[in-house]
C-alpha cells in the first residue's frame, strides 16, 4: 500500500475497489489483527454488498467480521477512520490505541498479536520515583550479591543455565500431571459405559469400564518483581517464566516494578532473544522504587478474575522490598489469597545466609503465603517440585 489513499465515494461505481480493501486489510494485519485471505474474501464480499454512500454500515459490518478480541474491538474504529478518511498520511503504519504503551513495532506475525493486551492496565501510578524511592535495603543487597546466580557472566555459561531452567520447568509440569494421575486412580465403575458395553452382550455386563479422574492441569500464574534489587536475577527468572509458559498448558506471567504488566504474550515469542527484547522494551523507562502492594492491587482488580480459577497457584518472585505502604500489601495479599488455591513466594535472598524476612513488605505479606522458599539457584527451584506437585 502506497500513500495513494483516496476517500471512498459513492461514485466509485458502487463497487469496493479491491486494491483499496486489500490495503485496509494490510493495515489491520500490521496492527495485529488476525486477518488472512479468508477474511479478505469475506470482507470484500460484505463490503461490496454494503451501501457505499454511507460509511457507518460498512464500519459496523467489518468490525463484526474482522475483530477477534476485545483489544481489536477497541482499536478498530480508529484504524477504520484513519484509513478510509485519511488523506494519504496513513501508510502501513502502526495505529496505536494505547499511546506509547503499545507493543514494539517489530511484531508482524500473528503470534505477537496479543501484544497490546498489557495496555489494559489503567496506568496505576507510573510516575518515576526518582532517587527518593530507592529501597532501604539496597546497600545490604549489594554487599551480599557477590554470590550465587549473579556470578554467571560469560555467554556460554548463561546459555547452559537457561537451558537448564527451561528443562526444569518442563519437568516440573510432567511430574505434576503424572503424580496427579497416580494419586487419583480410583477404581470406580463407570456405570454408563458398563451398560453401554453390555448391550453388545445381550445385557450381561461382560466388559467392565472404570472411571479414572482425569488429572486437571494446574494453572500457574507467575508474578515477577523486576525492580533494581532483583535485576541480578531477572534474566534468570524470565527464562524460567518462558519455560513455564511453554510447558504448562495454562500459565500466565506478569512483571511488576512500579506497575504491573501482563507479559504472557510477549514471552510466548518463539525466539528467546526476541522475547527478552520485547520484555525489556516493555519494562524500559521505569525507575526507582518497587510498588508490590499497588502492583498486586492492579493484578487483583484487572486480571485476577480472568486468570485465577479454583486450581491456580500463584507464584510471586520478589525480594519483598516494597516502597509502598505495608498495609496495602497486606490487604492485597489477603484478597489474592481468597481467590488463589496456593500462593508461593520465592525470595532469592532467602538463600543467603543470615537472611531473615525483615523487610516490612515481606513481613506484611508472609501471613498469606502458603510457601515461602528460597530461589537463588537452580537447586532451590528444583527443591520446590515436590511441593508444587502436591498442590
Amino acid at each position: 500500500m502506497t500513500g495513494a489513499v483516496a476517500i471512498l465515494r459513492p461514485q466509485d461505481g458502487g463497487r469496493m475497489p479491491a486494491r483499496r480493501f486489500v490495503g485496509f486489510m494490510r493495515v489491520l494485519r500490521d496492527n495485529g489483527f488476525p486477518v488472512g485471505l479468508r477474511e479478505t474474501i469475506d470482507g470484500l464480499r460484505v463490503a461490496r454488498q454494503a451501501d457505499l454512500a454511507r460509511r457507518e454500515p460498512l464500519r459496523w459490518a467489518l468490525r463484526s467480521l474482522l475483530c477477534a478480541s476485545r483489544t481489536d474491538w477497541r482499536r478498530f474504529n480508529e484504524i477504520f477512520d484513519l484509513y478510509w478518511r485519511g488523506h494519504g498520511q496513513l501508510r502501513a503504519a502502526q495505529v496505536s490505541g494505547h499511546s506509547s504503551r503499545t507493543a514494539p513495532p517489530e511484531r508482524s506475525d500473528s503470534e505477537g498479536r496479543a501484544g497490546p493486551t498489557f495496555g489494559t492496565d489503567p496506568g496505576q501510578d507510573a510516575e518515576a520515583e526518582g532517587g527518593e524511592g530507592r529501597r532501604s535495603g539496597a546497600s545490604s543487597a549489594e554487599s551480599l550479591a557477590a554470590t550465587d546466580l549473579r556470578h554467571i557472566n560469560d555467554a556460554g555459561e548463561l546459555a547452559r543455565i537457561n537451558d537448564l531452567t527451561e528443562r526444569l520447568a518442563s519437568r516440573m509440569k510432567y511430574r505434576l500431571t503424572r503424580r496427579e494421575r497416580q494419586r487419583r486412580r480410583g477404581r470406580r465403575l463407570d456405570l454408563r459405559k458398563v451398560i453401554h458395553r453390555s448391550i453388545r452382550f445381550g445385557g450381561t455386563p461382560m466388559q467392565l469400564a472404570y472411571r479414572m479422574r482425569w488429572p486437571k492441569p494446574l494453572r500457574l500464574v507467575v508474578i515477577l518483581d523486576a525492580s533494581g534489587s532483583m535485576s541480578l536475577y531477572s534474566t534468570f527468572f524470565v527464562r524460567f517464566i518462558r519455560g513455564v509458559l511453554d510447558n504448562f498448558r495454562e500459565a500466565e506471567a506478569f512483571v511488576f516494578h512500579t506497575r504491573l504488566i501482563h507479559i504472557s504474550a510477549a514471552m510466548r515469542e518463539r525466539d528467546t532473544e526476541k522475547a527478552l527484547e520485547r520484555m525489556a522494551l516493555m519494562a524500559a523507562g521505569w525507575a526507582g522504587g518497587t510498588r508490590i502492594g499497588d502492583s498486586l492491587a492492579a493484578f487483583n482488580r484487572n486480571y485476577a478474575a480472568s486468570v485465577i480459577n479454583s486450581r491456580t497457584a500463584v507464584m510471586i518472585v520478589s525480594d519483598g522490598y516494597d516502597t509502598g505502604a505495608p498495609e496495602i500489601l497486606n490487604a492485597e495479599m489477603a484478597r489474592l489469597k481468597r481467590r488463589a488455591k496456593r500462593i508461593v513466594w520465592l525470595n532469592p535472598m532467602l538463600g543467603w545466609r543470615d537472611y531473615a524476612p525483615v523487610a516490612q513488605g515481606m513481613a506484611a505479606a508472609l501471613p498469606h503465603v502458603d510457601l515461602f522458599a528460597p530461589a537463588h539457584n537452580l537447586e532451590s527451584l528444583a527443591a520446590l517440585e515436590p511441593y508444587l506437585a502436591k498442590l
Partner: protein
Amino acid sequence: MGTGMALGREEVLKRLGAVGYVADPQLATAIVLMQQLARPLLIEGEAGVGKTEVAKALAAVFAAPLIRLQCYEGLDANAAVYEWDYQRQLLAIKIWESEDRTAEEKERHIFDEDFLLKRPLLKAITMDKPPVLLVDEIDRADEEFEAYLLEVLSDFQISIPELGTVTATAIPYVVLTSNSTRELSDALRRRCLYHYVDLPSEAKELRIVAARLPGIEGALAAQVVRFVQALRKEDLRKKPGVAETLDWAAALMGLGVKDLREEPEALHESLMCLLKTQEDQAAVPIEVVERLAGKAG
C-alpha cells in the same frame, strides 16, 4: 441461511425493539452478517451486561426455538451431543430375546434412532427449522471440547459410530458467549463474528429499564440508572450489571419507593440486589448511599 431470506439491518433493529431488546446498529449488523455468512457470533463482555439476552432476543427475532448449551469444566460429548438410552436398549434386548430374528436385525433395532437421546448440539442441527443455538460461557469448557465444537460449527455434521454421520437439516444461528476466564483459541475466534458488549451508557440503560419494566415511573427510572452508573465508578470488586439494575428497580417498585432520596435506610438495605459480595457491601456504607442518591436526584 444465505438464501436471500436474510433480514435487513433496519428490520432486525425493529424486531429487536419489538421484543424489548435495546440494540445498537452495530449488533444488528452482526446479526445480518450471521445470516449472510452463516457464521457463529461470539459475544464477549463483563458479567451482567446481557450477553445471554442477545441469544434470547435473537430467537424471538427469527421466531425460532432457542437451544441452550451451558458449558462447564468437564463437559463431554455425552452431555453436549448425544447419548444412547441404555435402559430402553436393555429392555428392547430382553423383549427381542424370544423373537426369531438375526443378530444383525436385532442390532439394527437396538441402535435405531428411537433410542438416541439428542443433546443440544445434535438437536440443534436436526431440527426442521433453523433454531438459535446458544453456547453459553464457552470459556468454561475444556479446550478439547472447544476444538470439537469448532469442527461441528464448520461442517455441521456429527458422526455417531453406531449410526453413521448425521448431516444438518437446518443450520442453526449460533451465539457463543465468553467471560474470558480462559483465552479462546485463535481458530475459534477467527471462525466467529465478534461483538463486544460494554456496560451501557446512561441513556441506553434508561431505555433498557423502560423497555423491560414498563410500569416504572420515569423519574424513578432516571434516578435508579444514575445511581447505578455512579455506583459503578466506586472501587468495587464486582460492578453491578444491567440485570442487577433491573432487579433493583423492580425491588424498589415493589417496596413502593418513589424517590431515592427519601428513604436512605430502605435504599441501603435493598442494595443487596446490586452488591453481591460482602466486601462490596462493606465498601458502600449508608453515607455513600446517601451521597450517591443525592447526586442521582
